[in-house]
């Protein structure tokens, strides 16, 4: 029980903070405890209370008042339930939390697919309820896509891969993580205050006039955004300043490159979405008129600011996924990563272009016509640097000695899925076809191909690949293969029919549809249930392997990057002696070379 003490205290302090904040507002304005201003002030004080209670007070805040900070490091599994600064613990905290969020978001998707199985309303009491479930599904999965790879695998692996002992700002790292649970809690409690039915995009005026659940959504999104900004800052500093001797930029593993470049996006772009959400909040609570045409505001203004972040955000989601896949290919192809420098250049091209494509989300928004052509051009052009990622993957596979273990199998599935995601993207980048396809299930199909087929397959491949490193145990190869095939088949059967239904006039975000669309919807729904079950199988398999699987050796894949040159799992501080990097991380097939020299007491 003692292990949960920090969590209990965090909840207690958070509750006290909320009551204090909302109570003050209630006393001073006479509004009820769940009025919108009370929600805002209550949430802010509640968040501060939660952070102090969960451990920020001892580990950090005492220093601000001139007292010495206490650092009580726990042992064993209790570490995962407290404000711990070891990057590996934080990485696991992120991974497990976001797999939890993924499962909740998945259950919400199952509810949606049950409702959409047949025309008519069956499951939900009203359409507003469906909209809340759909909106919650959206924002949970967006959070998973933004944070699971960067927060989970990134935190765990970046310091290891660059030969550092920890992140540059370990306490900031812990803070970034502990900001996440209250945001999840706030989102889950939106149904208590009427839910929110404006989707994860929260377009005003709807998001200014709907139920108060919207307030909690905005606050939660901004909290996760803050976590993302702090994380980006931390990764940039870590990668710039803590690389081991000899780890030049051209020897940096490709996954580290992907995290480095997306951290620039997280740091710079996230504040724009926070600003947009803040303006919605101000319109609601204070009565400003940023988006109200009657007060001189403009609803389209929101969309520009929102997508100025939210398009780069899709690259925050997918570039680390590219990094994971390109990290997995070389050891299993037993070949160097093909065209490494071109690929890094491709990543840079994606990151740069991602800032000037946002208005392709707005081709049908009524924005001025002269914006169509330039945004179509930049959007089509972003396929060029993305193409370099495929060049790297195919060049690595060509003439390889292909060792088809589960991570490699899923990596190849990723390439196929993302290929479909990319090709269908062309139809959405083209203005004439987008006029028809925008806001239909074609778009739903497309982004589930890039997000599940891309980001989520990469996360799963990465979890299998680094599972022996993180847990010190091996997963079961046969179960891993069964799971990947199950996932692959159910996934394609779920999302492929959506392209058809979208093309034939099924608009998105609806609880019901006309009977002529029932065929593909029934097919999608049944496949979606099978897809959902594959995740239960995945989690049960990995939990079992973590507890009972055979012990893993330090480097089961004979990979060359640094994280494999220390024990599984690595000790606190990662390496007994800091490594010295002497060569290419992907020099497979070159006799007598190594990526790094590691102290004699580590490895094997």
């Amino acid at each position, binding site marked *: 029980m003692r292990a949960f003490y920090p969590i209990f205290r965090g909840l207690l302090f958070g509750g006290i903070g909320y009551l204090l904040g909302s109570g003050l507002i209630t006393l001073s304005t006479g509004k009820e405890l769940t009025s919108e201003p009370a929600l805002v002030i209550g949430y802010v004080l509640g968040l501060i209370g939660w952070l102090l209670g969960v451990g920020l007070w001892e580990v950090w805040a005492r220093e601000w008042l001139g007292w010495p900070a206490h650092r009580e490091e726990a042992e064993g599994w209790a570490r995962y339930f407290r404000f711990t600064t070891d990057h590996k613990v934080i990485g696991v905290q992120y991974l497990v939390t976001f797999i939890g969020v993924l499962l909740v978001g998945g259950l919400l998707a199952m509810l949606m697919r049950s409702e959409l199985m047949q025309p008519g309303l069956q499951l939900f009491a*009203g*359409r*507003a309820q*469906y*909209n809340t479930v759909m909106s919650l599904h959206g924002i949970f999965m967006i959070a998973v896509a933004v944070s699971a790879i960067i927060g989970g695998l990134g935190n765990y692996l970046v310091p290891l891969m660059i030969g550092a002992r920890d992140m540059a700002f370990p306490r900031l790292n812990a803070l970034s993580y502990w900001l996440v649970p209250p945001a999840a809690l706030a989102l889950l409690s939106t149904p208590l205050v009427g839910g929110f039915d404006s989707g994860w*995009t929260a*377009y*005003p*005026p*709807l998001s200014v*006039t709907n139920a108060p659940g919207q307030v909690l959504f905005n606050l939660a999104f901004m909290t996760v955004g803050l976590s993302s900004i702090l994380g980006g800052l931390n990764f940039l500093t870590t990668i710039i300043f803590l690389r081991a001797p000899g780890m030049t930029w051209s020897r940096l593993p490709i996954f580290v490159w992907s995290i480095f470049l997306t951290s620039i996006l997280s740091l710079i772009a996230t504040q724009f979405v926070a600003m947009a959400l803040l303006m919605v909040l101000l319109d609601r609570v204070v009565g400003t008129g940023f988006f109200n*045409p009657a007060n001189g505001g403009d*609803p*389209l203004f929101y969309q520009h600011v929102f997508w100025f972040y939210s398009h780069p955000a899709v690259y925050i989601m997918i570039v680390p996924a590219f990094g994971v896949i390109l990290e997995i290919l070389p050891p299993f192809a*037993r*070949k*160097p990563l*093909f065209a*490494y*420098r071109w690929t890094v250049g491709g990543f840079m091209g994606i990151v740069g272009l991602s800032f000037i494509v946002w208005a392709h989300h707005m081709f*049908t928004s009524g924005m001025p016509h002269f914006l*169509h*052509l330039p945004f*179509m051009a930049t959007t*089509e*052009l972003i*396929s*060029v640097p993305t193409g370099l990622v495929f*060049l790297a993957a*195919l060049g690595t596979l*060509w*003439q*390889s*000695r*292909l*060792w*088809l273990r589960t991570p490699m199998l899923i990596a190849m599935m990723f390439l*196929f899925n993302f*290929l*479909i995601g990319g*090709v269908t993207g062309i139809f959405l*980048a*083209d*203005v*004439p*076809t987008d*006029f*028809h396809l*925008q*806001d*239909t299930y074609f778009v739903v199909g497309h982004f589930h191909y890039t997000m599940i087929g891309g980001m989520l397959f990469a996360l799963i491949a990465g979890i299998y690949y680094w599972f022996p490193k993180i847990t010190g145990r091996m997963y079961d190869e046969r179960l891993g293969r069964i799971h990947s095939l199950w996932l692959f088949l159910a996934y394609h059967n779920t999302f492929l029919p959506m392209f058809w239904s979208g*093309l034939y*006039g099924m*608009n998105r*975000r*609806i609880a019901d549809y*006309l009977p002529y669309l029932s065929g593909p919807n029934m097919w999608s729904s049944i496949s979606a249930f099978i897809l959902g079950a594959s995740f239960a199988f995945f989690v049960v398999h990995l939990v079992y392997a973590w507890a009972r699987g055979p012990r893993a050796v330090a480097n089961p894949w004979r990979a060359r990057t640094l994280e494999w040159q220390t024990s599984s799992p690595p000790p606190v501080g990662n390496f007994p002696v800091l490594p010295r990097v002497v060569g*290419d991380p992907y*020099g497979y*097939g070159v006799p007598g070379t190594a990526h790094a020299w590691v102290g004699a007491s580590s490895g094997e």
Partner: protein
Amino acid sequence: MKDALSVLLLWLILTVLGEILALRLPLPPAMAEQARVVDEAFRYLWILGTPVFTFVLSILLYSLLRFRTAGDPPEDGPPVFTHTPVATTWLVITALLALSLVIYPGRQGLQVLLETSFLPGAAEKAALIVQVQAEQWAWTFSYPQYGIQVKDRLVLPVGRPVRFEITSKDVIHSFWIPAFRIKVDAVPGRTITLVFTPDRLGRTEEEPTLRVQCAELCGAGHTIMVASVEVVLPEQFEQWINQQRAKQTTK
């Protein structure tokens, strides 16, 4: 060399299959002049996208089948770090493809649609004006030239350009008739015009893609924010107008 030729063959076969699919792909009925521009672009993108898709797929499939080892490979593959001519060719071809798509069907299709649908020039030529007002959760169509107003039912004469003046009373909605292909948002505080020339007769009851569907999430009733559409002969349209007038004066 043998590997390269085999992949080439695989690519050819898959491409032919894909192109057959592209040419035979059934699209939903297009019931306005402007819709054909969209369909033409859709088919063209499929035709051009197919060889790109099958190229990557061929290498992926071939690698999976041909280069797979039985277990842990005893030796490493050839240490090829990069191959500048291959990478350069790849970059040039993908860049040319992307640019060509911007020019056609992108820019060209956009130009046609601007002329026939969006720009004031198109709007002036339009003979019939329909004011569309979206609100939570209904459509109101006004015919100012005839002084009538109808809720949730849109009747249009065939073969005559119609200028829709679209606005919203409350939140953002989106005016979309799938059979006409082009949608545009109804934004409070602005009026956006869009011209369609319906060129086929039909009604929602028989052709469900011929309906007005709100395509932008607008709250609880978004799902049911649908209006039926009927495209009729000019003389039937006159008749319908007279009926509506009679109805509205008796009210």
